[in-house]
């Protein structure tokens, strides 16, 4: 079991947007200055709260996209059609704006550099966000732990962190594979979802005793987790994080 530290009570605080970066047509990375950020583990998330002029509040949970090395933190938000929170974060929020948040939270879907064994990351769509934080933490720690990322996207223009993933993949210890479900770039013959054959070819085997992190929409996570268990992986070593249009707790 993970360490569970007694901690101070979390309270809402106001961060300031330092920068925004467009990742895809529907996703944006928001760089934040957070005055009282205690640091976080790769894979943790935070809650964002918006308050309307009439006092109506909506909050959502977002994975942190960056590793902690002091200074700023990054969120990457995918716009949910008719969403209450994400359209504002993706289309409206600009540098200098305040943003209310609390965190970090979540002690299960996390990777620590001192953790033993290889790391298998499997992300669908913006489910790659906490996996990118794990890759960044791996790079920051100059870890020699072997890491593989399988990243399922609809088409080449859906890829978040294109340049960053290229840089991360240049490490001898990191392997990044993109899986295209609708449309592949030239030279990539395979179009289709992650299946048993692909897991067999590209993922660590049960004998490697990896810790596997799967993040994406609920149907993606369940399909991949089922494939892993069918391939002989210990369910206790498969950590999952689902997200959906309902977002986090209100």
């Amino acid at each position, binding site marked *: *079991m*993970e*360490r*569970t*530290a*007694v*901690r101070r*009570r*979390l309270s809402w605080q106001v961060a300031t947007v330092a920068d925004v970066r467009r990742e895809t047509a529907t996703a944006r990375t928001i760089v934040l200055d957070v005055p009282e950020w205690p640091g976080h583990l790769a894979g943790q*998330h*935070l*809650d964002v709260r918006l308050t309307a002029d009439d006092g109506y509040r909506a*909050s959502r*949970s977002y994975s942190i996209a960056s590793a902690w090395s002091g200074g700023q933190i990054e969120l990457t938000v995918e716009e949910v059609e008719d969403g209450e929170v994400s359209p504002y974060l993706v289309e409206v929020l600009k540098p200098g704006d305040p943003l209310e948040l*609390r*965190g970090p*939270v*979540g*002690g*299960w*879907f996390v990777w620590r550099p001192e953790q033993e064994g290889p790391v298998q990351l499997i992300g669908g769509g913006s489910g790659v966000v906490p996996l990118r934080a794990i890759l960044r933490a791996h790079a920051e720690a100059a870890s020699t732990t072997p890491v593989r990322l399988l990243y399922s996207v609809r088409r080449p223009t859906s890829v978040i962190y294109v340049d960053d993933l290229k840089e991360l993949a240049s490490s001898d210890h990191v392997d990044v594979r993109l899986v295209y479900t609708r449309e592949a770039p030239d030279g990539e013959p395979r179009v289709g979802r992650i299946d048993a054959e692909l897991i067999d070819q590209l993922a660590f085997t049960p004998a490697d005793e990896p810790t596997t992190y799967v993040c994406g929409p*609920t149907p993606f996570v369940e399909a991949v987790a089922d494939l892993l268990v069918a391939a002989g992986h210990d369910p206790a070593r498969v*950590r*999952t*994080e*689902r*997200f*959906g*249009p*309902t*977002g*986090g*707790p*209100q």
Partner: protein
Amino acid sequence: MTTYLDGNAAAGKLSEIFAVDITAAVTRCDGCGQTGVFAETRLYLDAPGMVARCPGCDHVLLRVVTTSSETYVDLRGLTYLRLPTP
């Protein structure tokens, strides 16, 4: 079908109530006896309040309902929560 998330998404809300991170705790379902990490439970947010269900038998494990003045925490679906001693 109602969509659900998982126990990870309850971390912020539960931090308002508990002094330790419940999402990394092991839970035992009072319905079927299955044990697992709270983060892997099924979380429904479109009910009044927040409801966590057992991934094995769909039994309600935990409910949290917040009104303007009070928060109700219903833990009757859990036989136990297992946490490391701090």
